[in-house]
């Protein structure tokens, strides 16, 4: 067999691998665990965002009171 044909034959044989028993089950379990691990981080990020938004609103309210006080004094 010429080398090119042999390489092509070998490449076809190597296109798939043996799948260990239970591989798909392990992937699904790992994906589920990764999703659960991710959720608290998302909740923390959401809580921080809300806290920052609340802080910005308070600053805006304080500035509004200050500027209306300045307007009244003029």
């Amino acid at each position, binding site marked *: 067999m010429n080398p090119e044909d042999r390489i*092509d034959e070998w490449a076809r044989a*190597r296109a798939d691998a043996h799948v260990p028993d239970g591989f798909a089950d392990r992937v699904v379990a790992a994906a589920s665990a990764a999703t659960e691990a991710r959720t608290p981080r998302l909740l923390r990020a959401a809580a921080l965002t809300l806290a920052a938004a609340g802080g910005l609103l308070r600053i805006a309210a304080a500035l509004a009171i200050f500027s209306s006080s300045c307007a009244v004094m003029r």
Partner: protein
Amino acid sequence: MAHPTTTAAEARRAADAALARRAAGGDAAAFRALIERYQAPLLAVVRSLLPDLATREDVAQDAFVSAWLHLAEYDPARGAFFTWLVRIARNRARNVRRKRRPDPVAAVPERADPAPGPAADAARADAFRRLDAALADLPADQRAAFALTAIHGLSVAEVAEIEGVPPGTVKSRAARAREKLRAVLAREEMEP
């Protein structure tokens, strides 16, 4: 993977896109269907990219988990699901190679080649072993270019995008890899 016809490839791409959409919405059964469809070829890709690593199954598993976590980012208009999965696996393989030393694992496939019977089978088995070893000895970029195009059926354009290089670079890397593999077989024929 075999090279499917254009129509069959389009149908598969549409089916994968539908499964990916459902999986992105949290449908675990759809995700499992994708795993079962691509576990064998993805394990083969990881074996090609990391022939000297014993924990290839972990790398393939990590690639699937990463795909699950980032399914919302998969855009079927940009390419086939398997190509996207291979890109994830390729990035994982790069990270692993940077962090670890190779394990002293012989570059042999998990599935044993048929036991040599007649002389032709023995020659075939011997050639396959030499080619496995030669693939493992290639520089990583040549190995990836050759394996992803010649073994795993990705197009040059797809591999260029995965590797972040021009298509011409992929072609020349794959060509140099093939020359080296050819040379290995030529040396075998010259040996007494």
